[in-house]
């Protein structure tokens, strides 16, 4: 019984798993670039912060489970949903009390374009191309 060969086989299995995990991390980074293309490299901002759009369905609301949480009583707990398909973003009203205004127009379901101003209750958000932070 050659224990050295057994130990080497186990060690190689460990190393192989590690190499695949490192490859997976590298794929994660290249995946971010691909996602930027899918999501047309857009982001949402307000006066204080920038919200990256990293998922194909993004809930905006006051509730703790919302992807973009806006702690303002004028915003419903489940206010709006952002969706992306074929690189086009749309915003949907999911039963909010105060409604969604895009560039001052009350909408229920509309496609978004660069520099659109979205008003949810008293809060104003800007949908724009992602800017690289210096």
């Amino acid at each position: 019984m050659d224990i050295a060969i057994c130990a080497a086989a186990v060690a190689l299995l460990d190393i192989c798993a590690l190499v695949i995990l490192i490859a997976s991390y590298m794929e994660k980074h290249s995946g971010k670039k691909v996602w930027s293309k899918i999501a047309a490299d857009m982001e949402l901002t307000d006066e204080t912060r920038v919200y990256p759009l990293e998922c194909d369905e993004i809930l905006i609301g006051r509730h703790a489970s919302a992807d973009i949480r806006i702690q303002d009583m004028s915003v419903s707990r489940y206010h709006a949903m952002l969706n992306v398909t074929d690189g086009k973003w749309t915003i949907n009203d999911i039963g909010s009390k105060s409604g969604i205004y895009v560039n001052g127009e009350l909408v229920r379901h509309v496609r978004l374009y660069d520099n659109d101003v979205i008003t949810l209750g008293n809060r104003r958000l800007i949908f724009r191309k992602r800017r690289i932070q210096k």
Partner: protein
Amino acid sequence: MTNPVSYLLSCIFVIVTHGSMLMNVYTNGKYDSINDIITLSAGVILLDAVYFIIMPFFKQRTYAVDFMLLLILNMSMIFQSCFGGVHFDAKHFITCIAALVSCRIGYIACRNHRWIQTKKKFVWAGIAVLMVIILLFTGSRSMWIDLGFMSIQPSEFIKPLLVLACATSIAEQMNKKKLGEFNVVYDNLILFGITAIIILFQWWCRDLGSIPTFAAIYASCFFLRICYPKAKFSKKTLIIAGSVVGVLGIIAIILAPAYVKDRIFADIWSDPDANGYQQTKALIAIAEGGWFGKGAGKGFLHKVFAYESDIVFATISEEWGLLYALMTVLMLLIMVAMPLVNPPRSYYHGTMCAGIAAAFTMQMALNIFGSCNMIPFTGVTLPFISAGGSSMVTSGLMVGMIVAAQSPVFANPSHKPKKSGKKRKRRTV
């Protein structure tokens, strides 16, 4: 497309790992002729090479899960070919290829959630058809359908379909409708009904080992609905749901038939030749194997019934050592945990990954802890490692779904790229 250097490096390491296992078989294994090892090596390396060549044609964004799958499948091929003496296990080789093919099918079918959501009714119909097949052709007589040249276990195929049913219905969480006094989501009621019927069928078929797997899939998908917008599950609701499940579990144990109670409360060492036969032999084999095993094909467990499926963990421990058996389990866990490294970008893919991880983890726990006498022995297979075509194909399909979550497509099913680059006019949809 991933980095070609990391792709090539991963290919090399997978082949080298299989090579080291084959070297271990050559040095420590039991074989009649060197030709047995050459045939086995040729089969393993050929499968590796062909899959590495084919994979890039699918133009995925990630390949890590595929590498893990191939690593595990050929490890399984080497294990199965060495039980009771080195030989080329052609049947297992074919099931490994079937698993890889079903992985590709799972990837293609599930990568675009907008497309699969339009086919939701076919998923439900598929479950219904399988239920009818179980009702007509299997049942309490046997879980298997014998086709002569092969046997099929139809209940295995329900697992990926149940995961798909849970994932495709998650978007319906938004569509609450009035039913009397309550606001309900019809899909949730249908899913609950489907799961309850599946569990009742499994009970009727006496395949109690599969019930925890189906329950785990449903439970993981149920809990994931908390994360989905507008699910509105409060902690109170969850505590009530958990308590109901606990009470139902206790009632099921109390009302369980005598043969089930025998399994649950059996003392295997007081009855080593009947109720505790497989487990006592499995525990002795694990102990005799030690850290590095007796050598491939040199164990005695291959003489015990279901050595290659239900107690495969113990058979590997005996011949390859506990360290290698644990590493194999770790590889399976890493494969299902890949979505943690590269998270899915939609609720549908997230739900799918969680359902598959729950199913695999539950099956692994039932198989390993069952053969080690830590829980009652169930006879559930260890995904990809145990022999069995139905299990291999469905497990391959489920891994294909994880691959789909890693390389998703976000496009409308009817989308066709426009030839002209004209800008569309702005309009309200």
